[in-house]
């Protein structure tokens, strides 16, 4: 069976809109009858990635591929890139501004959270060019 493909543009202009794409995916997965635990894992991981695109990378593009046995999420941005991925993966490491922290984010838990909730995570990043984060959750 062909996977169902959903595409989203994530804008960095409006912080309050961050999460719109993840919410839509959550709704779609629910309507398709996926198990609640799978839906929770996909939506939290994608939401963290969506927030990262907004607070660290001026927005980007998300593509979601839904198959009966796997949900794959690819987040692409043309932001500043991540100089040291090992450091970025550490709990508590964050370059977020005080403004972002005041909004409840920037605790450095996003990438570790994504790792925790997914079965596969790959981060390709080039400083000055952007970051592509691909993750998947097995059903």
């Amino acid at each position, binding site marked *: 069976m062909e996977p169902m493909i959903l595409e989203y543009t994530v804008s960095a202009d409006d912080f*309050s809109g961050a999460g719109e794409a*993840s*919410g839509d995916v959550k709704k779609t997965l629910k309507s398709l009858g996926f198990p609640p635990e799978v839906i929770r894992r996909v939506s*939290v991981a994608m939401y963290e990635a969506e927030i990262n695109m907004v607070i660290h990378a001026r927005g980007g593009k998300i593509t979601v591929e839904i198959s009966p046995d796997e949900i794959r999420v690819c987040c692409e941005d043309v932001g500043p890139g991540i100089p040291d991925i090992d450091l970025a993966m550490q709990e508590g490491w964050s370059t977020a501004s005080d403004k972002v922290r005041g*909004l409840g984010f920037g*605790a450095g838990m996003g990438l570790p959270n994504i790792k925790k909730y997914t079965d596969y995570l790959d981060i390709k990043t080039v400083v000055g060019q952007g970051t592509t984060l691909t993750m998947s959750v097995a059903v």
Partner: protein
Amino acid sequence: MKIREISQLLDAKLYTGEEMLDREVHNGFSCDLMSDVLAYAENEAVLLTGLVNPQVIRTAEMMDIVCLVFVRGKEPTEAMIKLAEERSIVIMSTDKRMFTSCGILHDAGLKSGDE
């Protein structure tokens, strides 16, 4: 306990979710950091927070939190109320502080997901 009891115990003002007041909830979580809610909340259906912005509603949505309590008299904006209504999330606001609110609810039987 029922969501209705939460609003009564905290003497809270209700903004959304009148029709959900009879729903049973068992666990609560309190935090101002949405990153921590996303990392540590388990099956908590109630979130008490002093943070007021639309991402609180979105975090609740992702975590299947059905009831949000804003403490210290903080009020949600119109945009937040709309987001919450669309997602069937109850919003209430209490004048009580965080510690007091958590204590009252815990005494009345609302537990933390890790207890």
